[in-house]
């Protein structure tokens, strides 16, 4: 079979025979995403905060391990939530035309920032029983992340990591403006979804001190929300709808 025949009789014919799933109706979702108050086009960090975030990212890269710039030193920063206790989101400034954006730290595997633990040992260390998502069974692995007492528990499954915490500090997320940020509720409590690319995260403890070892790049879709008692973070490959279903199953 020559090239022309292959292109016509195999490639073109079989590509045309491809059976696709039904095309979803995207208009409503897209318009909601570009109109929601949580969308980056509207959600803007204060200029001072934007400069601080950029300085933080640059400093983290310069030291290779941590941020060395000033952080909000009082609990007043904690009051600056976007509705979720345990989390704060800052929109990173867009690089000027012709200027290359500062790269994020190289993504690291979970073993770089978490310690493996048996589920019951993790429960004992964290001081609460981790909630397991419905229908997922036991996690493939369990980890503890100790950025400040009490540690957070991370339940590792094939397609997601579920963080559960009752710590008093909070996570700051530096999110590039082009990513999608959606605010909504899960079980009546505030939730935020970050999707569409990498963002940077770091932990600030209850005293307002940044935990240097906490700085890392998150590439996956991230869903954060408050449960009845726990602060949850889901980092996942799952599609948005499946991630929300999973989150809804938790107390």
């Amino acid at each position, binding site marked *: 079979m020559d090239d022309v025949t292959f292109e016509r009789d195999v490639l073109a014919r079989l590509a045309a025979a491809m059976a696709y799933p039904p095309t979803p109706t995207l208009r409503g979702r897209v318009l909601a995403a570009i109109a929601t108050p949580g969308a980056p086009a509207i959600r803007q960090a204060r200029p001072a905060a934007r400069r601080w975030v950029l300085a933080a990212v640059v400093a983290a890269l310069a030291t290779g391990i941590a941020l060395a710039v000033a952080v909000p030193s009082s609990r007043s920063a904690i009051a600056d939530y976007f509705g979720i206790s345990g989390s704060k989101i800052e929109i990173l400034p867009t690089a000027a035309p012709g200027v290359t954006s500062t790269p994020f730290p190289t993504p690291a595997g979970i073993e770089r920032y978490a310690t493996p633990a048996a589920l019951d040992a993790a429960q004992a260390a964290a001081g609460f029983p981790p909630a397991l998502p419905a229908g997922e069974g036991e996690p493939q692995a369990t980890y503890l992340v100790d950025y400040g007492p009490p540690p957070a528990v991370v339940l590792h499954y094939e397609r997601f990591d579920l963080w559960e915490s009752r710590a008093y500090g909070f996570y700051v997320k530096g999110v590039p403006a082009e990513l999608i940020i959606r605010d909504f509720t899960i079980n009546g409590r505030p939730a935020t979804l970050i999707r569409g690319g990498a963002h940077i995260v770091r932990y600030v403890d209850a005293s307002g001190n940044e935990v240097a070892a906490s700085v890392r790049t998150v590439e996956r879709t991230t869903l954060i929300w408050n449960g009845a008692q726990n602060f949850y973070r889901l980092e996942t490959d799952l599609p*948005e709808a499946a991630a929300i279903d999973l989150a809804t199953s938790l107390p």
Partner: protein
Amino acid sequence: MFVEAEAIEASARGDREAFGSLVERYQQAAFRAAYVIVRDAATAEDVAQDAFVRAYRQMHRFRAGEPFRPWLLRIVTNLALNEVRGRQRRRGLFERATASAEIEEAAPDAGAVAHDDAATLLRAMGELAEDDRIVLHLRYYADLPEREIAAAIGKPAGTVKSRLHRASRRLREVVEAKYPQLMERNDG
């Protein structure tokens, strides 16, 4: 009546309803272009949505008079490839962390790929280099003519032509070596 140029111009001014008409017109192309790369309907839906949102935010960069579809599909293709690369990289990170056995890649929707041969061909294409896959996807699945592929990937039309030829030949070699039944069924 839908007039693309007017919808684009209005969208660039922030008219969301006008952008909505572009979404309706091109959602199938965006979804399918994403699907042939990520091979999962729900993920393709997210990718297509993200591509439209990103396109809306970058409308000020869109050059008036250019066709919208290849520009959009370029965004779709980049996002879909990022999704696949991220998935592969994260799988690698976890494997190194746990030294576990191989983790199976998520299977494509069983009911979605109705034609076995078409699915087999897509699997064969998955063994090609990324550059080759992109041009074949855009030409044969998104059904873009060569000039629109050139616009989509930002390369001259001559480069697209030669890349298509090269990619097709490499695909044929993969099919002959690993999936000869596709050739045999078309010989008779």
